[in-house]
């Protein structure tokens, strides 16, 4: 037989093959990871389904959490004011009580106050035109000033609310309120009202529909006196220290609380998200999603690694470092994460789109999407640790016993 073996070597015996410094390495690690992953199609499907389930669950839970934040903070994000005068013990915007009625004058007579707006807020009974009733949260504001309430009007106008007993409602709640648009009538606390404006996307966290009206109509419908309100928003004059103004107001009004805009916003968020446990439940759901996803990925990666254990032992026998083999497993985990993330995000966006016109508000932001990607990759890398622990204990001597 003619020999051709000598063509295979370039280095002398006793001399290792020279390594060219700075040269690009072969893409064998990602190739091996990719091939191992796609070799076991069923295992890959199980892994990806686990990750998709996890991504969708976490995306929806965090999306609902952000949506809840948006809903709770919506009034604060649209009402204009530096300080809020609120009844003692107020837990949130949606937990209204009435002030005594003398606050407006006390505030206006305090140096450093530029303007004052009042809001009359309270729970009302909405009687549907075709029978039946439901609870709603009435928000009365001075529409002649730029209070910012209501916003996102799609039909009618704020000016339309100037008409007697005019109200604005959100199209999301048409069915719940038993009305279909402008001109429809209903009763609020046994007084007739007419829908004169329709908004889109103003949904409450408590699921009670908001009903917007003027301050005067609000006071009437809530049975309050002509000078009463639930909240007094104070706008400081330019150059006035908010802290100093707050102290001055607190001295004049010892029976109420004076909160900054940020404080009242945070108090409302904390109350609904944490004191009621609603936010904790959403976060717990997201954590559960992460745990379930991690367990599924860990289990399937571990099984895949066990299936390929002899190959890893061979690589170790051929001189592969532990790091080389760990890279293969980590790339498998990251590939699974990226595939699962892309499919999971597509499904999540579908769910968000489907919930757009419902009372559920699920929010997806670029930051949340990036956080989910980092979370998914992190989850899969952590899950890969089980497989790595298995691999680092391989005895390469097993290659001789098969």
């Amino acid at each position: 037989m003619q020999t051709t073996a000598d063509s295979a070597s370039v280095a002398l015996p006793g001399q290792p093959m020279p390594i060219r410094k700075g040269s690009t390495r072969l893409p064998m690690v990602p190739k091996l990871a990719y091939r191992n992953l796609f070799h076991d199609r069923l295992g890959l499907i199980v892994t990806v389904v686990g990750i998709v389930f996890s991504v969708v669950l976490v995306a929806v839970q965090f999306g609902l959490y952000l949506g809840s934040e948006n809903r709770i903070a919506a009034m604060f994000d649209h009402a204009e004011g530096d300080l809020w005068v609120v009844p003692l013990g107020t837990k949130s915007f949606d937990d209204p009580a009435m002030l005594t009625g003398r606050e407006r004058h006390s505030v206006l007579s305090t140096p450093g106050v530029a303007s004052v707006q009042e809001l009359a807020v309270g729970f009302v009974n909405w009687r549907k035109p075709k029978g039946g009733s439901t609870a709603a949260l009435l928000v009365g504001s001075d529409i002649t000033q730029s209070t910012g309430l209501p916003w996102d009007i799609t039909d009618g106008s704020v000016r339309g609310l100037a008409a007697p007993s005019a109200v604005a409602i959100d199209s999301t709640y048409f069915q719940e309120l038993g009305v279909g648009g402008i001109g429809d009538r209903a009763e609020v606390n046994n007084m007739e009202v007419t829908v004169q404006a329709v908004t889109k996307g103003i949904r409450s966290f408590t699921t009670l529909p908001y009903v917007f009206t003027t301050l005067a109509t609000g006071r009437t419908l809530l049975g309050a006196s002509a000078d009463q309100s639930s909240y007094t928003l104070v706008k400081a004059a330019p150059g006035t220290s908010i802290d100093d103004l707050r102290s001055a107001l607190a001295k004049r009004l010892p029976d109420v609380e004076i909160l900054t805009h940020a404080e009242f916003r945070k108090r409302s968020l904390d109350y609904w998200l944490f004191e009621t446990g609603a936010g904790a439940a959403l976060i717990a759901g997201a954590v559960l999603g992460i745990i379930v996803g991690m367990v599924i990925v860990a289990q399937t990666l571990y099984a895949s690694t066990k299936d390929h254990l002899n190959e890893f032992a061979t690589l170790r026998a051929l001189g592969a470092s532990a790091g080389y083999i760990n890279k293969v497993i980590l790339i498998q985990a990251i590939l699974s994460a990226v595939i699962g993330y892309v499919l999971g995000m597509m499904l999540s966006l579908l769910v968000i789109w489907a919930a757009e016109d419902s009372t559920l508000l699920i929010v997806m932001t670029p930051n949340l999407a990036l956080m989910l990607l980092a979370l998914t990759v992190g989850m899969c890398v952590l899950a890969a640790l089980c497989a790595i622990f298995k691999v680092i204990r391989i005895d390469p001597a097993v290659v001789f016993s098969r």
Partner: protein
Amino acid sequence: MTALPYMLEARDITKVYRSEAGDIMPLKGVSVELAPGELTLLMGPSGSGKTTLLSILGCILSPTSGTLNIAGYSTAGLSAEGMADLRRRHVGFVFQSYNLVPTLTALENVMLALDLRGASRSEAPDLAWEALAAVRLSHRAHVMPSKLSGGEKQRVSIARALAGAPSVILADEPTAALDSENGQAVMALLAEVAKGTRRAVLVVTHDHRTLKYGDRMIRIEDGRIASRARRRAQPGEDTVFAPAA
């Protein structure tokens, strides 16, 4: 540069496995030298310590006592990663069950070994093709292992061992899973590798039909070297081994 007389030199190797049931000593002071350009056969009955010796010579196991030098490098005091580095640079393996990665083609299996040895993207393909050409398998380069015959798989395994030019090639029962014709072809190839590339090749075997390919034969029994012999017959003649000096 002075040529090394031996590519591998093991002196007084012992291995003891300690357990509650008592110590097991599969190797009891074994010395082995592998010279460049020679194919050495390691023979012995089951349980004689062949596999343990092969594992130690391949830097996979550490001896309990004794010294091992490969290509002039001592293994004394090396960590697991240091041993891995030494076998990556100086030892090529051929396994009884081929141990090819089933998800990679024949060419990729060879390239994997080159990648482990630090070959660059630009030189690795040429070296892998050369190694496959050396075992006459270029035409099967892009075939997956599951589509290769046993003989072809073992030739890929030899190409993988050759790639990167190791100093020593250790083969564990390379013909055990092959029919007679393929077994002979694989042994002929290993003999060519030893002669053609001046590597030291050690073949662990039970198969007496492989005797004619060996330059030297070492018999191991009960963890000790029972005999050493060197070929006397010329190629083509009946195999005759005479006791080594």
